[in-house]
């Protein structure tokens, strides 16, 4: 599979993502620039974390009008794979390939720490390869990660098994105490109806190399590679 990692002005996790895909997972990676107007034949587009356009106006709001996003949206809408991590997730919600929005953390603080995630969707490629009910440890680093969607949208999200991950404790318990940012129902990541677009605030690419002391993030990438 050929991956493409997009760099926007202000992206800062693009190199980590390229390293993970290329070096840790041995995949072919195309570097895509936000001004590019074609996807260079990639099968799987990744929008990395960072602060595209300085987070001006709202996180991800300006990036959605970058020239490459026209192609990314078309790719996603015809069933192609797209994944957004952190700022990439915010861009996908703005675009709007994914439902909902990401608001300022309820603590009003930027949070940078390891959290535990409970995989939920058993039908999405990124989570179905993980052991059901078993928490994975992945870091978060964001100021605007409080997932919110109106009630009718939430109903559809649950009906279609679109919740990928929920913030939990080490044992996999999901409750208010394990919610770092005030996200609705502890939601850390969602997918679309077609299960070809993934968005999550935590950074699996920062936890996919033994030298970093945590390889739980690799489980997510392995799940993707084994299930699509």
């Amino acid at each position, binding site marked *: 599979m050929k991956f493409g990692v997009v760099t926007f002005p202000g992206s800062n996790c693009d190199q980590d993502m390229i390293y993970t895909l290329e070096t840790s997972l041995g995949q072919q990676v195309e570097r895509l620039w936000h001004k590019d107007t074609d996807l260079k034949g990639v099968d799987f587009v990744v929008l990395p974390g960072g602060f595209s356009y300085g987070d001006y*106006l709202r996180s991800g709001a300006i990036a959605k009008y970058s020239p490459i996003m026209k192609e990314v949206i078309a790719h996603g809408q015809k069933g192609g794979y797209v994944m957004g991590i952190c700022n990439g997730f915010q861009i996908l919600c703005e675009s709007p390939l994914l439902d909902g*929005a990401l*608001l*300022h953390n*309820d603590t*009003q603080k930027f949070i940078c720490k390891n959290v535990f995630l409970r995989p939920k969707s058993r039908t999405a490629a990124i989570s179905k390869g993980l052991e059901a009910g078993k928490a994975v440890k992945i870091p978060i680093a964001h100021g605007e990660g409080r997932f*919110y969607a*109106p009630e009718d949208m939430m109903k559809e999200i649950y009906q279609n098994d679109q919740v990928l991950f929920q913030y939990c404790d080490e044992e996999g318990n999901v409750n208010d105490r394990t919610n770092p940012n*005030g996200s609705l129902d502890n939601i850390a990541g969602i997918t679309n109806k077609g299960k070809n677009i993934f968005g999550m605030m935590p950074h699996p690419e920062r936890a996919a190399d033994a030298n970093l002391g945590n390889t739980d993030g690799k489980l997510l990438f392995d799940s993707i590679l084994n299930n699509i």
Partner: protein
Amino acid sequence: MKFRAEIDVMPKDALLDPQGKAVTQSMGNLGLTEVSDVRIGKHIRLFIEADSKATAEAKADEACKKILANEIMESYSVEVVEA
């Protein structure tokens, strides 16, 4: 003709506004105990070249819908006047 649009973008009433909440609390600390329910949004001013006020309003509304506000979490209001 040139028009000026004054746009207010506010977090939706149903949503927690942590910034507003923090400022509300500081009001109490300042002794301004009469102040409550602070909510913080954005004010955006822009200029539009258009044939009529109605066209300028439509353009300002389009700008709000497409980029200036995210209607999942924000509401907006627009006031257009001749510049």
